[in-house]
């Protein structure tokens, strides 16, 4: 009886070790996939920031506050969709949010994908009057 219990315990330990190992590998692969999504999201976010920089005057930056935009990483056979959300706020020269108007505005673009429950990236840029 004790020997049977010991054998059972040995098999349990081996099983738990294997399960732990496979779970760690799955987590690592998930991280690799997420990092690729983050790179795609970052590329799309930066493009929108550059377009805002080119097309919107400093005085009119608030016009994009709260906007949302559906964009896609469409390269080759891939077509991955992201949702971008824009936020504009006054900040001081150090980038700390300010409750009163300053001569510096921060435009932040946050990218999300339906595969993930939390945002992938947030890309922010400061614009000076």
């Amino acid at each position: 009886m004790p020997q049977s219990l010991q054998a059972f315990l040995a098999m349990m330990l081996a099983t738990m070790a294997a399960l732990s190992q496979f779970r760690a590998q799955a987590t690592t692969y998930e991280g690799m996939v997420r990092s690729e999504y983050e790179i795609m999201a970052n590329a799309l976010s930066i493009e929108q920031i550059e377009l805002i920089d080119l097309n919107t005057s400093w005085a009119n930056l608030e016009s994009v506050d709260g906007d949302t935009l559906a964009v896609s990483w469409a390269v080759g056979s891939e077509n991955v969709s992201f949702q971008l959300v824009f936020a504009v706020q006054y900040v001081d020269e150090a980038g700390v949010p300010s409750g009163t108007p300053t001569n510096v505005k921060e435009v932040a673009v946050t990218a999300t994908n339906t595969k993930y429950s939390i945002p992938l990236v947030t890309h922010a840029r400061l614009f000076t009057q």
Partner: protein
Amino acid sequence: MSALLVFTAVALMVAVTQSRATNDSIEQTIAYASKKQLLDLGTTLEDEIKLIGEGMPSNQHITAFTTNSDGQTTSFKFWRNDGVNDLEIEYKLVFVDSVTTKTETFATYRMDRYENGVVVGASPSSLRDFKVEPLNVAGNVTVPAAARLVRVAIINTYPLGDLDNMYIGQTHYGITLHPSNLDS
């Protein structure tokens, strides 16, 4: 007898786990190397594209942009001055091989970098997608003369699995740049 069975079962479990862990470690190393190669390429392109038209007249900024039927950028030419010489830089896409997996067949490419018509650098030969595109103020692909932004999008591939059951992993790079000289 039962002890032998238990030993065999445990030993088999440990061996399979260890083998799987070793394979995964190798695949992660290959994936990391591919990603690092691509990010290094991207950084090099970023640093150079920001200098498009540097020290050059306005009619010598981006001078050529061609694509193939798959939308890949086959040639992207621009001028810049490196402080001493005027350089015509060309990123030229070269077909390398056709890769067949269980689910698809696709082409891989290499990007050769030319300076004044001479090859002085190249990317890995495992690129699946390569785009360096001039964009107008609306963010649409345009002709070189109307470009204000440059979009870079690259996908690099690496093999995973064994020869009899191989599949392909992909790593991505993308950025949109605003070379200041395109504003003039």
